[in-house]
């Protein structure tokens, strides 16, 4: 299996297909939501396979519900494995979240990424779920940190999540997909410190980084809340956090996600070019041992 290049990728939108193939810019790879391509045939799949002939693909799952109380669905894993075998993506990633409850005709799927309670029981369960997915898909997978609007009682610092992620990495052998926008959104929404978050991450396990835009809103009690809507440019604070992250862990394959209010290719490409400039500034630096990167560099 080939690795994802340590370069910029883009969350692929079919409307950008021709522009992406014709572009000679920053974007070197593309990511797609695996569940959008599990149909039997037709134009969507044909387009994905053509894209694959031009650049590496990262498959991003949104439906395995690895954070759930039940094991991932065997039939769904088998469908994903078949797509992986046919498409040969550079990697597969999923979320620290849940979305599925029940089985078969009694199942419901929430079509959203719901929060996991970071308990000892959940750790064992999620680790087993990741292990089952890695076995079925025949590879190490990456797990993405969620954006949270709500946390379980007692989760009053970033360590609640980063300790959980670190333990998952240690127990299941999975890697991490670090979504910098999600870190910012979660920390703002829950009152956590984003520098604590970066310090707490197992940096060596990071295989991919996501960047995206968010929206500001107020919740029903009038408290400010950030919504992870992937609907605009990356916020200045998130760019700053991206810089801090790469300073700590070194250059990593990085992706711009823009899923709602999808702009013209030139706008998206400009955002990718901006990220590539940041990535390039770290690509030339040598990172001998990521884990020994000085902590003050993150502050």
């Amino acid at each position, binding site marked *: 299996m080939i690795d994802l290049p340590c370069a910029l990728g883009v969350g692929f939108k079919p409307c950008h297909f021709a522009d992406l193939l014709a572009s000679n810019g920053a974007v070197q790879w593309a990511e797609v939501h695996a569940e959008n391509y599990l149909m039997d045939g037709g134009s969507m799949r044909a387009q994905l396979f053509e894209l694959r002939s031009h650049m590496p693909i990262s498959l991003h799952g949104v439906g395995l519900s690895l954070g759930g109380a039940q094991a991932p669905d065997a039939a769904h894993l088998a469908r994903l494995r078949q797509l992986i075998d046919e498409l040969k993506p550079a990697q597969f990633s999923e979320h620290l979240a849940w979305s599925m409850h029940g089985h078969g005709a009694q199942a419901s799927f929430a079509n959203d990424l719901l929060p996991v309670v970071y308990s000892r029981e959940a750790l064992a369960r999620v680790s087993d779920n990741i292990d089952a997915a890695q076995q079925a898909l025949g590879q190490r997978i990456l797990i993405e940190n969620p954006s949270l609007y709500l*946390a379980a009682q007692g989760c009053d610092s970033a360590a609640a999540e980063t300790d959980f992620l670190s333990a998952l990495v240690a127990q299941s052998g999975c890697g991490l997909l670090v979504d910098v926008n999600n870190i910012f959104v979660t920390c703002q929404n829950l009152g956590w410190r984003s520098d604590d978050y970066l310090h707490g991450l197992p940096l060596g396990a990071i295989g991919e980084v996501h960047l995206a835009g968010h929206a500001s809103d107020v919740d029903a009690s009038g408290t400010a809340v950030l919504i992870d809507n992937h609907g605009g440019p990356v916020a200045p604070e998130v760019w700053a956090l991206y810089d801090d992250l790469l300073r700590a862990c070194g250059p990593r394959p990085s992706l711009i996600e823009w899923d709602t209010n999808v702009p013209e290719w030139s706008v998206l490409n400009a955002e990718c070019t901006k990220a590539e400039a940041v990535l390039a500034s770290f690509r030339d630096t040598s990172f001998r041992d990521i884990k020994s990167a000085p902590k003050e560099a993150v502050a």
Partner: protein
Amino acid sequence: MQALFAPDAPVPKVFSHPRAGQEAADRFSIYRNNVVVSLKQNLADGFPLLADLLGEEAFAAMADAFVRAHPPRSPLMFAYGEALPDFIAEFAPFAELPYAADVAHLEWAMRQSSQARDATAQGKLQLHDADRQGLEIAPCVKLLVSDWPLYDLWAFLDGRADAPPDMALAQSLLVYRTQDFDIELACLPSGGDVFMAALLAGKTLSEAAQAAPEASMEAGDMASLLSLLVGGGLVTAIVETKPETQKEEKND
């Protein structure tokens, strides 16, 4: 999970609002909203002609009721909405639009066609014996039998015809996919629905022709239909339809 689909269900106790003195429900409603909004958007994207026919407000009200009654059973969101046509047929507020369900059936069939397994004929198609042989039809071919002028309704809603259809007509359709992945509709001639249904059920050509005798289907129409199927690459094989293997190919 129930708390997500039922607006009045209590928030699971384990969660708390990050700010003291405020309700977890104020934040939980963000998830609840995301779930319902994304599913309704999925339906609006998947049934655009139906949304036009019903109007934004009526479609949204129907979609809201559908999402709560039929939450997705799997993460394959391209397959969400299969139950919508039958739901609409039973949805009391649309009793005055009895053809709305058929428009939904049509849009579902078009989506199924667009996502069907790719299949082309292997080698040359050679028919030796119409009494023993039938046609294997490509999975992208979907038959829609309607009591309404479904083709004209589609053309009107899709902006291809200016005049509203004559509602006294009944039109059955064939939905299929071209080699370039375009979805096409053919309005079937009289008897064409019976003929196609027989072919799709794995009957021999002779049996299919007998099912649609001259009185109901003109020979020229049958020839045109066969020509459309063969010329469009929609016949993937000539098959011996022996009784013990006579089995309908899964086609919807």
